[in-house]
Structure formats: structure tokens, C-alpha cells
């Protein structure tokens, strides 16, 4: 077997990489392997997250997206088509997430096992999410107090929740 890198010398070095349980094999000559070992990170990784994603999205050459629900095939803001997303694994802008909406859900569930953010909320761009998150948290606390029959604390929390709810709806 001839080394595919230089096409000259015989391939004597055999490299097996396992990343995320994905196995890749390389057969190189001594010289090219050495070069690659040193410069490995400067070259394109053999497969990327994008490749894995597009695999999940089932894109293969002539594959055409089927329209599911009312979502458009193209993002209004950046113009990215769903098809392009399926090919590259990258969305075009924040608006894409809203535009392609439900079609992204199965993918997100497969990657993360969830489709709902439960972490940090930015102060300005977060909108009402911050208040909602706070109310959810207090409700959970309230339930704990009720379970422990600590009714005074529970009442105080209930009042705070009411105030926040007024804020949210007003």
C-alpha cells in the first residue's frame, strides 16, 4: 500500500483514532506520519461535528427536505435555506432557530436529550425569561415549605410570586 499523502512511499504507519466512539483509520508513510504528528491541528480534522450532524440530518447529495408544518424553507433574516443547514450543520443567524422552529426539535433532542434551556438568562436580551425562571424557582421552594407544613414561609413566598406575576403580565 502506498501512502496517500505523498503517493510515493509505502504506508508503514497505521493510525487508528477513536473520538466519541467514532473510529477512523489512516495509513501513512513514516515521513508523512511524522509531519502530520507535528502539524496535526493545523490541518482540517478528518471528521468534524458538522459531518456528524449532517449525518443525523440525513443529507446525502440529492436529498430534498420535506416541508413539515408551517415553517418556511428559507430564513427571513439571513436567507439560509433549511437544505443548506442540513448540508453544513450550521445555522445562519439567531432568527433561524425561530424560523425553522419545530423542524429543529428532533435534532436538538438527539444531541442534547432536551429542547428547553434551563440555564443562565441574560439581563437585557432575556426578556421575560428571567421573571419566569424566578417564579418557577419560587414555586418549587413554596412546594417544599408546604410539604414540610411551614405555612408562614409558604405564605410569604406566595405573596412574592403574586407580585412577580403582576410584573410579568403588566
Amino acid at each position: 500500500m502506498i501512502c496517500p499523502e505523498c503517493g510515493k512511499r509505502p504506508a508503514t504507519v497505521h493510525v487508528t483514532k477513536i473520538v466519541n466512539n467514532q473510529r477512523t483509520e489512516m495509513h501513512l508513510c513514516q515521513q508523512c506520519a511524522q509531519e502530520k504528528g507535528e502539524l496535526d491541528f493545523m490541518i482540517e480534522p478528518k471528521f468534524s461535528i458538522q459531518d456528524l450532524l449532517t449525518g443525523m440530518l440525513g443529507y446525502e447529495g440529492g436529498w430534498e427536505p420535506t416541508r413539515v408544518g408551517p415553517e418556511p424553507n428559507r430564513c427571513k433574516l439571513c436567507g439560509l435555506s433549511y437544505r443548506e443547514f442540513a448540508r453544513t450543520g450550521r445555522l445562519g443567524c439567531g432568527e433561524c432557530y425561530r424560523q425553522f422552529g419545530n423542524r429543529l426539535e428532533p435534532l436538538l433532542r438527539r444531541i442534547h436529550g432536551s429542547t428547553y434551556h434551563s440555564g443562565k438568562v441574560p439581563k437585557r436580551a432575556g426578556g421575560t425569561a428571567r421573571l419566569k425562571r424566578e417564579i418557577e424557582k419560587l414555586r418549587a421552594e413554596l412546594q417544599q415549605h408546604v410539604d414540610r407544613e411551614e405555612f408562614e414561609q409558604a405564605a410569604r413566598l406566595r405573596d412574592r410570586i403574586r407580585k412577580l406575576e403582576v410584573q410579568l403580565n403588566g
Partner: protein
Amino acid sequence: MGWDKILSSRSKWMEGTGPAADIVLTSRIRLARNLDGRPFPHLMSPEQGTQVISEVTEALKRLPPGELGTFKVYNLSEMLPLQRMALVEKHLASPEHAKGDGQKALGLREDEAVSVMINEEDHIRLQCLYPGLQLDETWELATRLDDWLEKKLTYAFDEKKGYLTACPTNVGTGLRASVMMHLPALTMTDQAKRLFTAMSKLGLVVRGIYGEGTEAIGNLFQVSNQITLGQSEGEILNNLKSVARQIIEQERNAREMLLTGTRVELEDRVWRSYGILANARRISSEEAMRRLSDVRLGIDTGMIGDVSSRVLNELLVLTRPGYLQLLVGRKLNSAERDQKRAELIRERLKPSKR
């Protein structure tokens, strides 16, 4: 452009201090953020790219003085390829970012504990890097910087999907927390692979030392979270911390086992590598990493008393191809690199320099 200073300064992570420094080299927090109402970097026009750089630069300049440090912003297109490569070797930029095509910039804090990649895959990739196992402290710094940046910049955020990112694998918290560990004993005793398989079931992933798509060299492994949506930052960090603690425990046990069961073999291996590093006239990058791993194990198990792990961390960076050529100031061929590398290592391991 102040590049000389980046070259000579030692990044904070190289100090070789911090909790569990015998196994954990660094704790890293990376936050992916995008600006609202405009395309992500891969779809931006050059004008939009320049605009993002200037907005983020402005926000970095307006951080409260003193408390969060001061930043300098470098335009990557103005750097030489070797300089950009050296940034990757110092873990300040990703390989993807260091390609330097398009409108890319890098904000760097003086102590190099914080770097802000501008127009990488996302508009902003905020990275904080501390030595040792300090995930909470690193997160604390990152989230405070994030809060300050958000005062000036409007992030792309959705109530249900969280922080919106170019790749759906980062959406939600946009958080990638990683711990870089030196695991020679687990590798020698063939336990590492099994451990890594188990980790993937917990939503964690093991990568090489330069991140995604890179291989493990010198027994250095980067363990990070894979899931960014559905778990809160606290849950992600706690999950990673508890797994890291278990790995540390197991690595320590494996070291203990090797020390009691096969002490002479281990000592022989460590001191042979030390001898080669201290005397070789030519050494490849691969061999240097392997030998440095042995010597690091020797230091961390108390066999070698008079070399500091700070020197080893510096060598980890200095002996990489990009940095090496940058030090010499010109492109070197492979044989010249091997020679220069050996010289540098000998110099650093000299008793007076330890």
C-alpha cells in the same frame, strides 16, 4: 502591535499551581455568544465582520477598570501564520480561529487567563483558563465578564432555546467546560479507554489537547461536557467536577499501584526519559511530548525533586513547532526543529534554570 509581549509572557495556566495540580493542568470555561439580528460569522459580509469586531472591542475596552483586567485586541489577519499557530499552542485560540481568514480578532487579557475570540464559529467565544482544578472560580470569572459584555452588546437569546449559536451542539448555555488532565498511569495500566467509554454515557466527551478533532498527545486528555441544552450551568459544572474528581482518584490509585508494584520499572522509565531530554541533540515533537509526560509523572510522584512543573508547562508550549519557529524567528525544516527543540529542553532542564 505588542506581539513580542505575548511571545515572552507566561500564561496564567502555565503556573502549574492550583488544586490537584499533580493531575489537572487546566480548567477551562468557554462561552459561545452571538449578537442579535445579524448573520453568524460564516454568513457575514466583510463589513458586518468588521462591525462585530469593533463593537466587541468597544465593549471590552469599557469593562470596569482593574477588577476584570484590561484587554488588548489583535487582528488575526495582521499576524503571521506562525504567530497564529503559536496562539493555538498556548491554548489562547482554537485551530479554527487561527486559520485567520476573514474578519477575525482576538481579545487578550494581560495575564492571558482570558481570551475572547471574535468571529470564530460564533461572534464571541469567551474563554477563561485557570491552572489546576478550579472550575467554579473559572466559571465565576467567565459569567461576570459575560454580564459586563451583555450591558453593551445585545445577545441572540431565545427563552426556550437559550443562547443561540451557529452550531446546534452549543445552543442553550453555550457553555463548554473542560478539564485538561495528565493521565499517564491510567494509560499505562490500560484503564483510560474504558474510563472514556463510560464517560460518554454521562454526556461528557474526551478530546485531544487542542480541542475538537485533535488527538491525545503526551497522555494529556481534555474532558468536557457535550450537552449544552436542558442542563443548567451549575448542573454541567457539578457533573464534570464529580467525574474529574473520580478520574483524579483513579489516576492516583494507579500511580500508587505502579509505585508499589513496579517501582524500579517506573523509576527507570522516568529517569531514562529525563536523561534523554537533558542530553539529546535532536528530538521530535512526538518524542518530546512523550518524554515530558514521563518526567512530569516523576515530578508529581516525588521521584524528581528539583524540576518544577512550571518549567514543564512552559516546555509543553515552547517545544511545539509554531512556537519554536517563532522563537528562532524564521521557518525551520523538520531536522532543524528537532535540533532547536533538543537545545531548548536541555537549556531549561539545566540545574541552574530549574
